């Protein structure tokens, strides 16, 4: 058993599940989306990215790319949320919708990572 693989799989799947939890609900209703969940998703996703830094294999490079995409989307979502709640003082349904849709995009990137990880694992079994 490769400890590094376990950690990476753990963090990437955790990022996906947390993101899913955040994403689910009415897209423009702030009550359905928890800010702590977004925060944790971002942290877990960043850790997953760092775990792939310096991986020279082809799969490692692709996983690094997908998790970087997820980070970028999540940071954008968090920035918009922070800006609208702190600077304009009010999170409108339209802003909430864009935050959630950005997180949804990040979830797609996380999903890609997990699918890649699974496909690699299945190939190894053969």
């Amino acid at each position, binding site marked *: 058993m490769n400890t590094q693989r376990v950690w990476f799989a753990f963090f990437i799947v955790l990022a996906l599940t947390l993101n899913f939890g955040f994403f689910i609900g009415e897209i423009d209703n702030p009550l359905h989306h928890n*800010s*702590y969940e977004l*925060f*944790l998703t971002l*942290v877990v996703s*960043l*850790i997953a990215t*760092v*775990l792939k*830094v*310096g*991986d*020279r294999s082809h799969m490692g490079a692709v996983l690094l790319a997908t998790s970087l995409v997820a980070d970028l989307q999540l940071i954008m979502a*968090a920035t918009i949320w*922070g800006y609208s*709640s*702190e600077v304009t003082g009010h999170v409108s349904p339209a802003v909430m919708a864009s935050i959630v849709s950005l997180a949804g995009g990040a979830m797609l990137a996380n999903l890609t990572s997990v699918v890649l990880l699974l496909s690699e694992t299945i190939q190894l079994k053969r």
Partner: protein
Amino acid sequence: MLEGDQYWAHSKSEPIWLLLVQLRSPLIALIVTYSISILGLVLIPGETDLGSPYYLSFLDAFYAVSYTAMTVGFGEIPYPFNQSQRLWMLLVMYSTVIAWLYAIGSILSVFSDPAFHRIRSQNRSISQVRSHNEPFWILCGFDDTGFQLIQFLDQAKIRCVVVDEDPERIDCARLINLSYEPAVFLSDPSEPQILVDSGVSRPHCCGVLALTGRDQINLMIATNARVLSPRLSVYSRSNTDFSTRNLRSFGTEVVIDPNRAIVHRLVQMIRRPNTYALHNELIDPDFNQLSVHQLSDLGHWIICASGRFSELVVEAFVREGIPLCLVSREPPEDPSVCDWVEGVGTEAITLREAGILNATGVIAGTTDDGDNLSILLTALEEKPALFSVARRNRSSSELVFRHGQFNEILREDRVIAQEMFARIQTPLLNQFLGHLEAMPDSLVFDIIGKMSHRRSVEQSELDHFALVLTAAQAPGVVELLQKEATIKLGDLLIDPLREQPLLPAICLLIARLNADVIPIPGDELDLVLGDQLLLWGEAEALNRIKFFIGRPDLFEANIKESDPLL
């Protein structure tokens, strides 16, 4: 197997990725401490200045943690913290600052790692080589010889890539004053990978120069280069006949054995002084004078030498019938061929025993510079009129030898560099030097006489250049030739300023497209399109010729003015 460029990318990216791996744990430590700190600040209830409950937003918390971690410390904002928040902030301060120290420490240790530096400079050199878009040579082994040769090549605008395993020599290659910055590789040149890195398979690579002092390494460089890129020229240095034969057996273009080359020059100097003078002027880009040694045939030569050099000298001198007396610690292989005196030659008594008073000259050819100096100083004390030949082994002793007022100094490194440079620079010169070997000395004497007759100032610098009669190189000549006019070789030498009847220059060789090769052509020879000329003369005169053949209008006017019949 990996294709060329893929291979490059692979070897290039590898070290950087390995170093990034080292940054993983500090980055994770930073992320974890930051996130826990932020989360704590967000969750712990605070109070506004009016006492109502207040929760920090993520933005505030991130801000507070950031300035705390960076030890900036802006204070407790937006409201003064309560005790539970302060308790948490204590934790935040210590943990984040420690995490940063750890991260910065790791980054610094990565950057100060010598392996990282080596890899970085290696990568820089690799990309430098990849971006080369002009011809270059790979110079393996950067001792005195390489140092000399890279300077010669720079004068001819030919670039080099340097490979050596000694960090000091590599530093020297970095610091040397050239018109370009050479790519340098600190590595064992006998490794095939380093040849690939230094560009052996790049289209602009002309060849490989194996100049290390060790035969086995030179041999490996030559074989590696031959296999990796068969189209390349491979020039190698060799210290033994065995190694020379070995190198030649797989088609190494040029093999220079410094000892044999020096002995050959000694014999040439004694038997054919004019040829020696011309050869010396042509082959060395820094030596631009003709100095013919007039040696008397009466006396014998005292040779202080040891080892292989003494064997080669004795063999060559006996073959040429030059009388000699060998001074060495060990007797010659066949004691009957020449006189032998036991000793080093540094003491007057040994030299007297060798008959110094009747000698023409003395050759101090040991492998120790101190001994050589001592031999010559003692010998000149005994007989000031002696012709003194010094062998200078290390370039660091150059200064003393140059001030020693010796008649001739043989420098092993310089001889190798000269021989290789003459073959790299222009094929025409190499061809002429081949003809020069076979020319009788009297003919060379005539050439030198002709040159000094044309020269007004004896001390001016001599130079040579190769010229091809094509529209690109000599538009003046070519345009006139296309008009069906006849141009004689002498027409090139008409002085546009009319200061001299003919410019002080001589054409040494013409190689024609129809494969005719004419050494020392007469001035009446008609020029033909595509002729390759090797012109030799005063640098100033050659510059005038270069200028005029490039200007069709001026060239034609110049010829017509001097010859109204044309």
